[in-house]
């Protein structure tokens, strides 16, 4: 592994998508849990807990997509055209998720709110599931021909392993969302969310264990990578410790540390995934020689350099004001007349 521009951009694209998972992950998780609450008041509290931040969080996905387009256009083109229907479903899900937040509280009718509640929740779950399925397919490998084009079908993407990764992603986001919810609420809803957080941790651990087993048994190229680099187990360990730390922080009453633990769990998972892939961006299966790598699918060094300057100027500013905005909206959610 050399730290050339291609590797730096591989890491940066990874950072953007990890940022997306850590931030919009809790929005989608809140969405997945939304229908479990029955009272209108509680649903509004949940919606408003993500109200000010969800669309900034979604920008991480947009920027990640843009960075992928700019740095690795062949990956962007092959994956997006190859996963055509799956991505249109994802777009539809993200649209219904987004507009439901904005529309729901604009009218008092019961059927109206019910409709957007379902749209919000189903949209969130479907988004998480499809993102997971896409990741699962990339980990497993997809058929790529010698011209770098996708050679499979839509139904071919819905294999057991990617579906398993999809469900695991839903579980991960539910856990993350529940912990975020615990941090942002008080009273009865707070206690309820804490219970759900514990249940979703169990759900996630079962899914994650199953996925790990399936990976070791059925995904030989990843197994080989881990076999050659035993230190990768430290990432698995970091992940498990982070998860185990969540109930501990709850117990100590440090909800925000529980949330950070959940973020750490996500980072270690993404790092593990990225290192298993490197230097491939899209692993071609059954023809590994046709894989799209960070070298054969990248933009020119000049463009990667320009983009690095853009990122170097832009990203620190973005992080600075994002932190400020989260700071302004810190603390428990209070419903007022500007709320959703």
């Amino acid at each position: 592994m050399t730290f050339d521009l291609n590797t730096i951009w591989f890491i940066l694209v990874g950072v953007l998508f990890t940022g997306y998972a850590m931030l919009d992950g809790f929005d989608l998780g809140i969405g997945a849990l939304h229908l479990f609450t029955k009272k209108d008041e509680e649903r509004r509290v949940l919606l408003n807990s993500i109200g000010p931040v969800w669309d900034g969080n979604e920008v991480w996905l947009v920027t990640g997509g843009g960075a992928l387009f700019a740095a690795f256009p062949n990956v962007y083109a092959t994956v997006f055209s190859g996963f055509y229907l799956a991505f249109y479903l994802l777009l539809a899900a993200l649209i219904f998720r987004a507009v439901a937040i904005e529309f729901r509280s604009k009218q008092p009718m019961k059927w109206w709110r019910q409709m957007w509640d379902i749209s919000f929740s189903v949209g969130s779950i479907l988004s998480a599931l499809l993102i997971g399925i896409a990741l699962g397919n990339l980990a497993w490998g997809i058929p790529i021909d010698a011209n770098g084009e996708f050679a499979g079908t839509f139904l071919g993407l819905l294999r057991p392993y990617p579906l398993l990764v999809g469900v695991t992603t839903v579980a991960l986001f539910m856990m993350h969302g529940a912990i975020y919810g615990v941090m942002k609420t008080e009273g009865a809803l707070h206690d309820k969310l804490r219970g759900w957080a514990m249940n979703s941790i169990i759900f996630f651990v079962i899914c994650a264990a199953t996925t790990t087993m399936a990976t070791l048994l059925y995904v030989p190229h990843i197994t080989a990578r881990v076999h050659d680099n035993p230190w990768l187990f430290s990432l698995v360990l970091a992940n498990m410790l982070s998860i185990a730390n969540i109930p501990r922080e709850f117990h100590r009453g440090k909800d925000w540390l529980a949330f950070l633990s959940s973020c750490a769990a996500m980072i270690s998972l993404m790092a593990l995934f990225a290192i298993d892939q490197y230097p491939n961006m899209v692993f071609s299966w059954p023809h590994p020689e046709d894989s799209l790598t960070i070298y054969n699918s990248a933009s020119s060094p000049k463009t990667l350099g320009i983009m690095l300057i853009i990122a170097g100027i832009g990203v620190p500013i973005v992080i600075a004001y994002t932190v400020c905005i989260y700071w302004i909206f810190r603390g428990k959610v209070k419903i007022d007349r500007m709320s959703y």
Partner: protein
Amino acid sequence: MDVLTLSRIQFGATIAFHYIYPPLSIGLGVMLVIMEAAWLKTKNPVYHQMARYWTKVFALTFAIGVATGIVMEFEFGTNWATYSKFVGDVFGSALAAEGIFAFFLESGFLAVLLFGWDKVGRKMHFFSTCMVCLGAHFSAVWIVVANSWMQTPAGYHIVGEGMHARAEVTDFWQVVFNPSMLDRLFHTICGAWQAGAFLVISVSAWYVLKNKFTDFARASLRISLTVALIASLLQLVSGHHSAQGVGKNQPAKLAAFEGLYDTSSNAPLTAIGYVDEKNERVVGIQIPWMLSFLAHNDFHASVTGLHDFPPQDRPPVAASFFFFHGMVMAGMATILISALACFFAWRKTLFQKRWLLWVLVFSVLGPQIANQFGWFAAEVGRQPWIVYGLMRTPEGLSKVVQANIVLTSLILFTFIYFLLFAVFIYLLNDKIQHGPHDDDLIPSGKLALPDELTEHKKP
């Protein structure tokens, strides 16, 4: 239908629908900055009420703009994968820059703009409003950079051959300031200001006519008519410049806009008419010599006609002509309407002229039509190229995507977008019927000044 036609319909439809919203966000963003500045300066609570009212409308347009915007970013890859590979090195950078510089700024500070009324002080809130507005403008900058590069590519060279050929950046600033970029940026932004201003005008004129919320409506009209007049007049200058740029950089496009087949000095300008493509002539009212003058500042200058281009390099003439002239007419109408309304407002007789107020109510459609037709003219006029002179539109298609799959997504998104539009109109109408909130006359939380707080506590 084949995959090319379906993909073009889908891209055209999704971008047209998306393009209802960003101009409104940009235009309303400017209006919000002015309203809030007026409130900070004059302390007149009606401006506070105004800012809060339009913030809610802004939130609605912004949410749909974001939701439909992600579709655009994915669509280059899903439907136009070969194009994406060809231009990724150049075009992708602009999109990524848009994300980093514009979207984060916009959506981050939007949180404070929408939900921070009671949480931050006046200055911080005003600062956030300015940042949201600035972010919206940045987003226009980068997307116009990307699109203008497709119209007038610069600062690149072609590397590789055949299937592996692609454009790579040689000079980043030449890419950014490509020949048509500045003209098109000003044109786009003026159009967006018009869209925002005329929405405010339309709603306010309606209130005046219905004798509801009159103080609010009159104050809103004063601000929005001023912005509309300025933006419309700037648009006249910018439109003229853009057209001259098109004549210089994309002569086939200008010829199609005016239906000019034979190269001629003393070329006429068509005021109103249509193109008879079969007989290669324009039917309508023409102003002799005017096109030569407008394009080259000289009544006798020669303007290149379509016959100078091989048939396979000509854009669809009748459609280009129609959209271009539709845009010009709608644009002229906005100038006329805002100038008339400003004149009567200056004479202090606007509120007695009910016919003009009714015209103002419907004037909201003017910038929308002009913006939509303008984009269609720009994109149809670029055909048959996807990147002018470098890549033809059919060559840009995804190789692995079949017609039935595009049809599926097209039907799905037609359904979704009709639903979104219906809900948008329903909620907007609901908001307009309810009007501004009386509570908004009294700033609360940290926004309140000490004396207002004490006044508020008095019975």
